[in-house]
């Protein structure tokens, strides 16, 4: 078992950057410490593919740049984990699915190329729910991911999903940051379950080019880190306008970290009353109220607002996302890449390949999508959902005329044990009840650790702002983080426990 240098794996990205700049340590040393942590923590199953040689090569190049005084960015030399949904040149990319087994992209996604150009050091590709469909990281072909947060009841808990591998890697101090992706909450909900920061920018900020598609009108890349400042630093190296993605938005890119001024005096914080669900655990309600009080103490003004269509966002999502998935996943036919299961005819080959290559949840969602798009049902389901989506967007737009930011819980519960909530798909889908509405409206949102549940598991608070106002999101997130002073650590750190 390699020895883990916790002095290096416990750092934030900002502190590691400063240490590298001052010459306290090299990226090679930082990277070696994290490679050791990754190897020592294999029982978390956070990584599908480890890339230690590649990481050391990139760390060496980073040290050479820095020695010449030419660090590429605040991410130069920083070891990160990359969700296995980003196509990475020469490194197998599976999206957690059997059907992509053996697929090695000859190209790099725009977001991971941006991170490479910024000097970030990829440690490997992280586990995830198959094709990002799940809220517990229990649908991966490569097995369940274990949350580094444990209680003394001997049960393994889920890290949330779908970016569960990146969440576990960051929470367990195996990487300083993680690239995730969020379709309905897949960055924010695992961040809440794992006690870290997870941020989804405005739809269009990050290019989707080279990301394995789930639901194209919702998919968005984002950072998963151990501080709000780190999320701002990492996001800076992920965003770009990209002509290769027709939904990429050509907007000025601000200095995100500079937005963390700590000053939120006079900001209006919307508290949507419809997020107060029947049967919501008292600890979630208490933390939410605590969050409102923290922002009020910092000089912001809480305002109760109403978003009456909130409860329809999740069922609307379960039409829109599967519909888009059924179209996007039609490309997996066994002809050009990945798994092929032979058949006597071309159709039989398709059916065999897709029957065997897709897991149960993906098959289920493709079938929902196929049904809602099929002749005779298209208007009743798909068009209806797109009309609901208009109403949800308009409702947010109206509410943001009166407030600067909204505060809600991130998830309706803390992390649950592996095996729970598995019998009924709808129960599992409810994990994303607070994160899906912002996704439906393309809005930026962040989950910040707020405190611990009665049992001692992390709970997140969730902020939403107007389109392209990530600066307010980071500013308020920073204030929330400071007030919460979340210093609790998972029992399992850097493979050291």
């Amino acid at each position, binding site marked *: 078992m390699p020895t883990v240098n916790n002095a290096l794996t416990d750092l934030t990205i900002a502190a590691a950057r400063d240490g590298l700049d001052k010459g306290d340590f090299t990226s090679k040393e930082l990277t070696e410490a994290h490679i050791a942590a990754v190897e020592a923590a294999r029982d978390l199953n956070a990584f599908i593919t480890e890339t230690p040689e590649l990481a050391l090569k990139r760390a060496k190049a980073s040290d050479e740049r820095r020695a010449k005084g030419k660090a590429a960015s605040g991410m130069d030399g920083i070891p990160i984990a990359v969700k296995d949904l980003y196509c990475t040149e020469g490194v197998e990319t599976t999206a957690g699915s059997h059907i992509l087994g053996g697929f090695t992209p000859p190209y790099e996604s725009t977001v991971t190329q941006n991170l490479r150009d910024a000097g970030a050091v990829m440690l490997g590709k992280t586990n995830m729910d198959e094709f990002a469909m799940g809220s517990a990281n229990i649908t991966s072909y490569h097995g369940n991911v274990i949350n580094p947060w444990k209680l003394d009841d001997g049960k393994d808990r889920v890290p949330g999903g779908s970016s569960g591998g990146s969440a576990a890697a960051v929470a367990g101090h195996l990487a300083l940051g993680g690239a995730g992706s969020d379709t309905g909450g897949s960055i924010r909900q695992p961040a809440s379950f794992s006690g870290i920061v997870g941020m989804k920018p405005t739809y269009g900020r990050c290019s989707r080019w080279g990301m394995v598609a789930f639901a194209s009108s919702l998919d968005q890349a984002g950072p998963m880190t151990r501080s709000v400042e780190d999320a701002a630093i990492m996001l800076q190296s992920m965003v770009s306008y990209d*002509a290769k993605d027709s*939904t990429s938005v050509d907007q000025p890119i601000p200095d995100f970290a500079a937005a963390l001024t700590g000053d939120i005096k006079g900001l209006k914080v919307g508290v949507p009353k419809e997020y107060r669900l029947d049967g919501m655990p008292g600890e979630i309600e208490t933390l939410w109220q605590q969050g409102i009080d923290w922002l009020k103490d910092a000089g912001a003004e809480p305002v109760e607002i109403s978003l009456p269509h909130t409860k329809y966002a999740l069922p609307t999502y379960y039409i829109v996302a599967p519909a888009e998935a059924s179209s996007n996943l039609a490309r997996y036919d066994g*002809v050009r*890449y990945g798994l092929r299961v032979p058949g006597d005819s071309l159709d039989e080959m398709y059916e065999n390949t*897709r*029957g065997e290559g897709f897991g149960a949840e993906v098959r289920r969602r493709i079938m929902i999508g196929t049904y809602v798009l099929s002749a005779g049902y298209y208007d009743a389901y798909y068009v*209806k959902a797109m*009309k609901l989506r208009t109403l949800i967007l308009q409702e947010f737009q109206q509410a943001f005329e009166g407030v600067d930011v909204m505060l809600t819980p991130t998830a309706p519960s803390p992390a649950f044990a592996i095996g729970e909530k598995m019998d009924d798909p*709808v129960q599992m889908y409810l994990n994303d009840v607070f994160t899906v509405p912002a996704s439906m409206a*393309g809005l930026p949102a962040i989950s910040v650790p707020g405190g611990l549940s009665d049992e001692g598991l992390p709970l997140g608070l969730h902020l939403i702002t107007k389109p392209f106002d990530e600066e307010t999101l980071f500013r308020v997130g920073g204030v929330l983080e400071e007030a919460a002073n979340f210093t609790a650590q998972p029992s399992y750190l850097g493979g050291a426990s």
Partner: protein
Amino acid sequence: MDKATVNNIAKLARIKVSDAETESLAGELTNIFDWIEQLNEVNTDNVEPMTSVVAMAMPSRVDEVNDGDDAERVLKNAPDRPADGSSFYAVPKVVE
């Protein structure tokens, strides 16, 4: 949603589903669509369906070749290719 409907959707989606799974899928999909039915409570008669979440004009570019002539890279991940090594994907015979 009955087994015949599930089998029809599976056929449309080109996914082979076992008999046992057809049975459980019929139940699960029925539950999911029962839950989705609540959308009918909302009157959407005069609402335009959303086409884009961010109001923006679709970008256009000059229609010119900027890539290509790279068959080996395209075929790199092919599960099967003709025995003579030519630049095609091989699939089961389609035309008798």
